[in-house]
């Protein structure tokens, strides 16, 4: 901002007073001080408007970042020996096989329950 513009701002802030002479200079300083105070007041009020949404957005971004980073974190291999890892895979498949067996048995029982009445009906 140039000197001319400052003077114009001060003139505006003083309500059109003349600032010639010592008293005028003091008045100009006073008016400049007021203008500066008004500007800084305006600056202070601006953060109030965007602070809360910005804080919320920042918080969300941090939380999302932590969440995604946590999700990406690859666990460490439980085994360094492939034979031990294989033994574990084998155990897992046996467990799945046992579960499959139980499921199949349950299905067979159900099929038997359904089959008997059908046989009785067909024999009559």
């Amino acid at each position, binding site marked *: 901002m140039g000197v001319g513009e400052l003077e114009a701002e001060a003139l505006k802030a003083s309500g059109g007073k003349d600032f010639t002479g010592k008293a005028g200079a003091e008045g100009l300083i006073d008016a400049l001080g007021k203008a500066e105070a008004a500007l800084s007041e305006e600056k202070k009020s601006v953060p109030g408007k965007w602070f809360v949404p910005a804080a919320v957005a920042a918080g969300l971004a941090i939380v999302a970042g932590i969440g995604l980073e946590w999700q990406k974190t690859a666990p460490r291999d439980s085994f360094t020996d492939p*034979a031990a890892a294989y033994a574990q*895979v084998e155990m897992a498949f046996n467990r799945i096989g046992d579960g499959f067996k*139980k499921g199949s048995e349950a299905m067979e029982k159900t099929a038997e329950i359904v089959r008997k009445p059908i046989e009785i009906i067909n024999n009559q």
Partner: protein
Amino acid sequence: MKRLALIILAAVLSVSAFAQDGKSIYNKYSNEEGVSAVYISPAMFRLIGKIPEIKTEENGVDLSTIIRSLTGMYIISTSNPKIREKIYDEASRYVKSKKYELLMEAKDSGETMNMYTIGNDKIINGFVFLAQDGEETSFICFDGNIDRKQFEDTVASLSK
């Protein structure tokens, strides 16, 4: 400030809900007390498949082809009553959210066992085994590109 805290809390909850998958369930519970946890990485599966001296036959069933097609396996098993239900609920939510298809369900003497797969008619891209009885909860989850027919035949052979 209170509102801000509530919004952040909601965000934390939504992120944790969003983050559910085999890996996140494993990461969340693997270090808990009374949990036995196993993770086998894709690199380890490649290694298992390459080493010739490893016998990849169980009960006369050849697992080698399936092992080669796996890209990661998470196993969690616990009898800790504080987290048994949590693991079961989170795993159930996970299979629902990812639209896993129920392959088999069996309920017998208080034990519930569910198997889920995701993929298409020919290929299984993900498998989840979830079992719970009065004392223990087991969660087995693996990913890969597994031939569906071969997988089902292998599991059927193992069950004999």
